[in-house]
C-alpha cells in the first residue's frame, strides 16, 4: 500500500551539496520544500570529529561515506557486445550517500570551465575545419556561455569559501594565477593555501620549461570565512585526511558544513532521510511530473509525495536512472544514435606519475588538496591541436602533501607489493615522493552511454543502471600528450627514480581514478539534441529540473563540481525570477 502525502511546493531528490543549495534557495523564495535523501543524516558535530575522523581504515579503506552497493549499484561493461556485471565494491569512482552526498568526501578541487569549453564544437569547427571532428565524437555546444554563468560561478565560490589565486580578473591577466582561465568578476574568496615542499619543486621546474604554474584552487578557505548564508567556516588545518572523508576543521566545502547548519533551521524545509526515491509519476499529456514515489528504507513503507516542482539532484547515475524508470524521454540507442536519455556518458580521463627523491624530506604526513600546484598550459583550446591527432586536453597537478599512513605509500616500480623488501622501500621513499596527476577532458563518443541493465536489479526490484564505457583513441592520445609534458617536468627536477603510468587501453572499475562521471541527461538548445534546456528544465516535463553533472554534454579537462554548482545557481535563479510566476517551459521548443 502506498501512502499518499499532502502536496508540497517542491521535492528535491538527493540532499547532497546541490540539493541542499537548492532547498535553501527555494525556501528563501517562500516555498515549502521536502528533501528526500536515501542515506542517513550526517552531522559534523557528531560524525566528523576527532579522533574518529582520522580513522583511515574506516573512511579511506572501508569507505564509510559511500553509497551502499548492496542497496543500489551500477553495472559495467566496456563495449555493447559484452555482458555487464554489477560493481559490488566501489573502485574507480565513489558516489557518496547520506546528507551532504558526495560533497562530504570530495577532494575539494574547485574549477571553472574555459569560455571555449562551452562552445567547443563551434570553436573546433572554426579553427580546424568542418570535417575535423570525427563522426563518432558526439560533442556539442552548451546552451549557456561562460559569461552568462560567471556571476553564478562567483556565487558558488562564495558559498564554498574557495581558496586560490585569480589569473584573469575582469580581463586583466595576473602572473601567479591561471592566466588561461576565463575572466573572473572577483578574486577568490580566500588566499591560496601554502604550497607543499614538493609543489614548490614542481613550480620551479614547470617555470623553467616555460609553463605557468599556480596554486591549486581548493574549496576550503585558508583563513576563517563567512559564506553567503552566514555560515562561518574554519581555516584548512592541513590535516591530510581530506580524500574520502569530510572535514574536522569545518573548512572543506560540503552540503553538511556550508548549507545544512542554516537549512536545518528553515521551517519550510523538511528533511526525510532513508527515503529511497524510486519513480516519478509522469503525466505525459500535461507534460508534468505530479508526484514522487519513495520507500522508507527503515520500515519498507511506500509513499507518494505530490509536488508542484520536482528537482533531481542525485548523482549522474541516479538522475539518469530516474528518467529511465519513469518513462520520461527516449532512451539512447548506440546503434541508431537516436534517443537522448543515457547519451554522452563521459568519465574523466586521468593518468598519474610519481617522482621519487632519495634523502629528501617533503613532510608528506600533512597537507591538503590545495597545497598542490597546477599548470594549465595544455587544456581545452588553450593550445593549438594542429597535427596532434586529438582534441581536448587537461591540467597537470602535482605536490607532496597528504600521504596518509595506510594509503600514502608510493614505492618505485618493480617493488614487491608486500614483504620485507616492500617495507624497506616504503621506509626509504615515504618522505621523498612527488605525485603528479593529469586531469584530462573526455569528448563524448557515441559508443559510451548508460541504459537499464537487462539482468541485475536493485533492492527495490528496479533494473540497475548499466554503463557502457571505454576510453577512446582521442582520450588516450590526449592523455599520452599530457604525460609527455609531465615527464619533461619530472626530468627537470632530476629525481632518483620516476614512473609515468598511462591508462590501460581497456578501462576497468578498479583502482580509483576519479568520481567525475558526467552526462546521461544532457543539456542543449533543442529537444532534438538534449534532455534539458539551458535552465536544466526537462523538455518533456516543465516542472522537472535536473541538476548536477548529468546535464553536461561532454567533459572538459577540469573537475566538474565548480560548474555544476554554478549551473544550479543559474537555474534556480531563473526558477525564482520566471518559473514561479509563470510555470511552463522556460525555453520554447
Amino acid at each position, binding site marked *: 500500500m502506498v501512502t499518499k502525502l499532502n502536496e508540497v511546493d517542491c521535492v528535491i531528490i538527493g540532499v547532497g551539496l546541490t540539493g541542499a543549495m537548492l532547498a535553501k534557495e527555494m525556501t528563501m523564495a517562500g516555498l515549502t520544500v521536502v528533501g528526500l535523501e536515501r542515506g542517513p543524516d550526517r*552531522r*559534523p*558535530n557528531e560524525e566528523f*570529529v*576527532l*579522533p574518529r575522523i582520522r580513522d583511515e581504515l574506516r573512511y579511506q579503506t572501508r569507505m564509510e561515506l559511500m553509497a551502499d552497493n548492496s542497496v543500489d549499484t551500477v553495472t559495467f561493461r566496456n563495449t555493447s557486445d559484452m555482458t555487464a556485471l554489477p560493481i559490488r565494491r566501489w573502485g574507480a569512482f565513489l558516489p557518496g550517500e547520506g546528507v551532504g552526498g558526495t560533497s562530504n568526501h570530495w577532494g575539494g578541487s574547485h574549477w571553472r570551465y574555459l569560455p571555449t569549453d562551452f562552445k567547443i564544437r563551434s570553436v573546433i569547427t572554426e579553427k580546424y575545419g568542418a570535417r575535423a571532428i570525427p563522426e563518432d565524437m558526439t560533442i556539442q555546444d552548451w546552451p549557456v556561455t561562460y559569461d552568462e554563468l560567471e556571476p553564478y560561478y562567483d556565487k558558488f565560490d562564495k558559498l564554498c569559501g574557495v581558496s586560490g589565486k585569480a589569473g584573469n580578473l575582469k580581463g586583466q591577466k595576473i602572473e601567479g594565477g591561471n592566466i588561461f582561465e576565463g575572466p573572473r568578476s572577483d578574486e577568490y574568496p580566500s588566499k591560496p593555501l601554502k604550497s607543499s615542499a614538493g609543489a614548490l619543486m614542481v613550480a620551479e621546474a614547470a617555470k623553467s620549461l616555460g609553463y605557468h604554474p599556480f596554486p591549486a584552487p581548493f574549496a576550503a578557505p585558508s*583563513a*576563517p570565512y563567512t559564506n553567503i548564508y552566514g555560515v*562561518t*567556516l*574554519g*581555516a584548512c*588545518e592541513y*590535516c591530510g585526511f581530506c580524500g574520502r572523508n569530510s572535514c*574536522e*576543521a*569545518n*573548512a572543506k566545502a560540503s552540503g553538511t558544513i556550508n548549507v545544512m*547548519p542554516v537549512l*536545518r533551521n528553515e521551517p519550510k524545509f523538511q528533511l526525510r532521510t532513508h527515503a529511497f526515491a524510486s519513480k516519478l509519476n509522469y503525466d505525459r499529456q500535461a507534460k508534468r511530473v505530479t508526484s514522487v514515489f519513495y520507500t522508507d528504507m527503515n520500515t519498507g513503507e511506500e509513499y507518494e509525495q505530490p509536488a508542484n516542482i520536482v528537482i533531481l539532484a542525485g548523482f549522474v547515475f541516479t538522475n539518469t536512472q530516474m528518467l529511465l524508470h519513469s518513462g520520461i524521454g527516449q532512451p539512447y540507442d548506440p546503434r541508431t544514435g537516436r534517443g537522448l536519455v543515457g547519451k554522452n556518458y563521459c568519465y574523466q580521463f586521468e593518468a598519474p606519475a610519481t617522482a621519487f627523491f632519495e634523502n629528501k624530506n617533503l613532510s608528506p604526513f600533512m597537507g591538503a588538496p590545495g597545497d598542490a600546484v597546477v599548470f594549465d598550459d595544455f587544456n581545452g583550446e588553450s593550445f593549438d591541436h594542429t597535427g596532434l591527432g586529438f582534441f581536448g586536453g587537461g591540467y597537470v597537478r602535482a605536490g607532496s602533501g597528504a600521504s596518509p599512513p595506510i594509503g600514502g605509500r608510493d614505492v618505485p616500480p618493480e617493488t614487491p607489493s608486500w614483504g620485507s623488501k616492500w617495507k624497506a622501500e616504503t621506509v626509504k621513499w615515504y618522505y621523498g615522493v612527488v605525485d603528479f596527476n593529469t586531469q584530462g577532458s573526455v569528448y563524448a563518443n557515441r559508443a559510451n552511454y548508460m541504459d537499464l541493465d537487462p539482468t541485475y536489479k536493485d533492492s527495490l526490484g528496479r533494473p540497475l543502471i548499466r554503463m557502457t564505457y571505454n576510453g577512446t583513441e582521442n582520450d588516450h592520445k590526449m592523455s599520452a600528450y599530457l604525460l609527455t609534458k609531465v615527464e619533461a617536468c619530472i626530468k627537470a627536477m632530476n629525481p632518483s627514480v620516476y614512473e609515468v603510468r598511462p591508462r590501460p587501453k581497456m578501462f576497468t572499475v578498479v583502482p580509483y581514478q576519479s568520481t567525475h562521471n558526467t552526462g546521461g541527461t544532457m543539456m542543449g538548445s533543442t529537444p532534438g539534441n538534449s534532455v534539458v534546456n539551458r535552465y536544466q528544465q526537462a523538455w518533456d516535463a516543465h516542472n522537472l529540473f535536473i541538476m548536477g553533472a548529468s546535464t553536461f554534454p561532454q567533459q572538459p579537462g577540469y573537475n566538474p563540481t565548480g560548474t555544476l554548482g554554478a549551473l544550479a545557481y543559474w537555474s534556480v535563479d531563473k526558477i525564482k525570477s520566471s518559473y514561479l510566476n509563470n510555470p511552463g517551459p522556460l525555453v520554447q521548443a
Partner: protein
Amino acid sequence: MRLGFIGFIVLAAVSSASALAADANHGKELFLACAACHTEKADALGPSLKGIVGRKAASLDTFRYSPAMQRSNITWTEANLREYLMDPQTKVKGNRMPFSGMPNRADVDDLIAHLVTLK
C-alpha cells in the same frame, strides 16, 4: 653565552610588555579562527567559550568532551590557556580540538584578552 643571556632578558622584557599591552581588539580578530567551531549553536563543533576564563575544563553539560579533556583536571586560568593555545597537544595530550596552536606569544595574549571579555 653572554649574548644568549642578554637575548633572554630582552625576550622576557618584550613578552611581559606585550602581555601588559595585550590588544583585545586584535584578539577579537584572531578569535574569528575559533568562531568557526566555538559558537553558541546547539550543533557547534566546539564548546561555548562564554565565561571560559576561570572555568574548569570539560565542565559544560551541553558538549561531549574528549576523555583527555575530561581527565585533564585543569582550570582555565590565563596561564593555562596561554600554554594550551600555544600548543594544545602538549598541554592536553589527546584532546580533540583540530588546531595545531599559535606560535606567536603576543597573538596568544591578545586572544586571551578577548576571551576574558566573553561573559
